[in-house]
């Protein structure tokens, strides 16, 4: 992967509160401890970008996914993600098993005893095969970024979340922080890896490799506002066509992560696809905790100063 900007440079502009704090937390503090969790946040602006492009993201419409896995392959080709083993899983046609350090796009295959999505009821058997291409959600409130101590994870000017391979020190804090279980450590080098939303392609005005390769436009890339509009239209269309179970996932800015930069149209409950039903940014309570820590630290510092002062007073010379 080519890193297109300096290590966390824009993010670093976010504030001077305490350079030793994780980038995201700095951002949160800079943006106001309560405002940072507001649903309509513009994460790039909150991160300190002045003039910046609109927030970009993915809308993955699983109702038109044909399970060809071109996204998985295109992603690996473009990003030089290594092959990760020949494993016959027996999980329908899914031999990738899930997102991980070496799988940044993953197509789930779910065989169900339910009628086809748009089939006329009562005919044609009772089988359907759901396919869905999963990816990093590029959360509005990204816990991985919050906890990264090195600034390897940073918010880009497009509002996406990217990990820089030359900065990551392999501490692994981000892995349990992700509410979706997306970011992962590579065993061979210990570093954390995940989808960059093809940051290097975006910088060159190209769409991400997976979206480019998707033959049915199941993966759509664009400004998040536009994608949300398109998704609402598609959802209404499906509801009208008699698919009441169709729903959007990760699209709501009011959800526990402030809405996802990569959201989905699903035909069933999120759990069916292996997605958490109600994800919450794991660092939600951190600002409050840090506030308490700050108060405690200030008290400690005051105590220390006082003791130095006292010591000075008591200095024998």
């Amino acid at each position, binding site marked *: 992967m080519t890193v297109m900007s300096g290590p966390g440079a824009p993010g670093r502009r976010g504030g001077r509160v305490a350079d030793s704090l994780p980038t995201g937390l700095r951002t949160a503090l800079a943006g106001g401890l309560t405002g940072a969790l507001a649903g309509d946040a513009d994460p790039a602006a909150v991160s300190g970008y002045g003039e910046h492009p609109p927030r970009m993201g993915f809308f993955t419409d699983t109702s038109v996914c044909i399970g060809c*896995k071109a996204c998985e392959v295109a992603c690996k080709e473009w990003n030089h993600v290594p092959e990760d083993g020949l494993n016959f899983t027996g999980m329908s046609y899914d031999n990738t098993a899930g997102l991980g350090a070496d799988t940044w796009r993953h197509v789930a295959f779910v065989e169900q005893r339910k009628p086809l999505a748009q089939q006329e009821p009562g005919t044609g058997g009772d089988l*359907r095969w759901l396919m869905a291409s999963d990816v990093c959600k590029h959360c509005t409130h990204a816990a991985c970024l919050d906890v990264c101590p090195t600034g390897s994870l940073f918010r880009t000017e497009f509002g996406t979340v990217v990990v820089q391979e030359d900065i990551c020190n392999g501490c692994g804090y981000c892995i349990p922080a992700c509410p979706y279980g997306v970011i992962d450590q590579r065993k061979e080098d210990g570093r954390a890896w995940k989808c960059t939303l093809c940051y290097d392609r975006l910088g060159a005005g190209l769409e991400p490799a997976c979206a480019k390769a998707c033959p049915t436009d199941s993966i759509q890339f664009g400004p998040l506002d536009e994608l949300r509009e398109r998704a609402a239209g598609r959802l209404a269309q499906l509801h009208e066509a008699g698919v009441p179970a169709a729903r959007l996932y990760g699209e709501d800015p009011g959800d526990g992560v402030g809405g996802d930069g990569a959201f989905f149209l699903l035909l069933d409950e999120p759990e069916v696809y292996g997605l958490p039903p109600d994800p919450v940014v794991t660092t939600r309570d951190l600002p409050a905790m840090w506030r308490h820590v700050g108060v405690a630290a200030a008290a400690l510092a005051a105590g220390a100063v006082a003791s130095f002062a006292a010591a000075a007073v008591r200095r024998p010379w």
Partner: protein
Amino acid sequence: MAECHPVGFQWVMEAKARGAKLIHVDPRFTRTSALADVHVPLRAGTDIAFLGGIINYVLENDKYFRDYLVAYTNAPVILTEDYAGTEDLDGVFSGFDPQQRSYDYRTWQYEGLEVQAASGERDQQYEDKAGAAIRQSGRGESHGSGGPAIPAGTPERDATLTHPRCVFQVLRHHYRRYTPQMVEQICGVPPEIFQQVCELLTQNSGRDRTSAFVYSVGWTQHTVGVQYIRTASILQALLGNIGRPGGGILALRGHASIQGSTDIPTLFNLLPGYIPMPHAHANETLDKFAEAESAEKGYWADLRAYLVSLLKAYWGGAATPGNDFCFDYLPRLTGSHSTYETVMAQLAGDCKGYFLYGENPAVGSANGKLQRLGMANLDFLVVLDFSLTESATWWQDGPEIETGELRTRDIATEVFFMPVAAHTEKSGSFTNTQRMLQWHQQAIEPHGDARSDLWFTYHLGRKIREKLAGSTDQMDRPILELTWDYPIQGEIAEPDAEAVLAEINGWDSRGRPLASYEQLNEDGSTACGCWIYCGVYADGVNQAARRKPSGEMNWIAGEWGWAWPANRRILYNRASADPDGKPWSERKALVWWDEESARWSGHDIPDFSAAKSPFYRPPPDAAGAEALSGVDPFVMQADGKAWLFAPAGLLDGPLPAHYEPQDSPVGNLLYSQQRNPVRQVLPFRHRNNRMQPSHGAPGSGVFPYVGTTYRLTEHHTAGGMSRWLPYLSELQPEMFCEVSPELAAERGLEHKGWATIVTARNVIEARVLVTDRVPALTVAGRRLHQIGLPYHWGGAGYSTGDSANDLTSMSLDPNVHIQEVKGFACDIRPGRRPRGPARAELVLDYQRRAGITEQTGMEI
């Protein structure tokens, strides 16, 4: 289609988004089914019964497009009294010769006229027309000599469609027992689903609406494959869905440019542009050949001009009127030389050398063991491929080395491996299924020693010509006099692919590029490498390289690439207008007769003489295109009509009838004739190609299940382009079989465990994927289980596994010599297969249990 052609499937999805209904008929529930409105699981090998049932529905419920049918098809034409069909003869047609196992087509004729097929076995009539005595060869010539001269005049017609011998009534009689109940019994399709398909299809066909059929090798790879497609043709002609936008029958080919490889053929019996390859007829001359092969009417009447121009492209100045334009230089057929007969010739020691251009028959062709044994009996083998495929390495570590049936030190075949350039490393064209050529430019130089096929063929020819230079042997003249002067370029001396395209397009005597095949002459003043491609290099411009954005042209997108013939995007599009030349409806308007300019006009380029009025009627003595009237849209047919009934051209009957596959656990419920009586099996009698007893015969219970082979999105055909790539291999890492939970319970198969699959040919092992997507069917009152077998794997590469094609047999369609691998009886048992000599022993044991001899399955 989503499974094997995901990129093309985007257009189906787009149609769906606009409200199109998608019906998917497949034994398995695939990625296509997942996106379909209706999935119809049926027993593999029963599509003629299914489609025949729809034909019966259309006829009995008056759902056909009557105006189209009467005007543009041969429905009103009256047949001679000599014709008798399968209803009268219990499963065979009149003219059947049980001795020769072939049909004499002459009883399948129109009253008052004999016609030739536009393509296919036109040579069938050679003897009748040319009067030569031909006995020995393998196509339609073996029907005896002599016969009637071609009668003049027009066929008798009954526009009311009520004459008992008119094609319409014959068709009705032929399919009257293809009822929904029969469809259910044969195919395992419940009547309510069948009814739904019939309704969806007929409601979406007519003046205002059209439906398209899309098929792949699921239709072709049967002993009745051609008749599968014929059944669809009949249905589409009845519904008026041919020659109109949104209609047609689309053949999805096996991989990129397979259409191109039939247009500029890699087939033994065709020359470029579907001109038949001449047979070794006694005393044959260009005149006699052209006379026998030309149709009286239609564009095939100009065959001589196409052929002479081809000979001029091959031999240039050496081809003169005085030497029949070197017609004698063309090789001659002495029978069928299909890929499978070639294998038999290898085993017999007659075929000594074999070139495999990107083909991996050790995995991809039927009966892999025989393929490998054939190659083990060669003098030399040349494999041109990206990777060391099983066809390049069988001598070292193939399955027969493991079983001890072959020993490397005993194999005399000298094997050459030539690494080849990928499409990104060379320029050239792809021809897609809609006959559209798209040019691709070289992006990078080939890596290492890799070279393009064009490079290899050109330089091989050049070296052979250098070796033969100065020879006075007559035999060497066809090689020495070839025009073999393509410009070469770059460090690796790559021939200029565009120069080849220019030669295919053709030029006049002054070297100016031709613009249309109508300019081709039979006097040697034009040269053209493939008449149907004439125009692809019009004005000296590579028309196939055009890439005009869709927003800058109309919806037919005629300036993207170039389609043969004459850049027409929809063939036979005269049929999109009514007999008076007006569109059938505004919604489906494509081309129409413009009174003012007195020309055909429209969105597409008319596939019709531009100035021929709809009201033109030919004078009685007219010939060729002139002889077609203004209401004859099917211009390549001798009578200009779509054929519901094929009076000539097919070796296995004028109408499709349901026959069971070669190896089937089910009996034919329609006729006592179990299998296609003229299927090709006799030439392949071999101890490693044993057939199995079918339904009812003793021993047939040994193979109670139906196997079917197919591809997966993640891999490509025999794996040469995918199993060596880690990113694709990890997506489908090993050979597996798909079975229903019911079959798994019946045979004790464990999900993710191993299964052993057996036929009379071989035994393989596969991981087990238990899935509802391969449903058990109720067929003829019993439960029938099918076993899904992807055919990608072999022993070489990064992802390996046993080959499904080791199970399949050489039993072929008689018309096009395609193997039956889409439906065959087999057995399955839990666990891995035996290793070493025990592997072959297990197959012999099955053969003994089923009482298999060399006669088994060979009956008519």
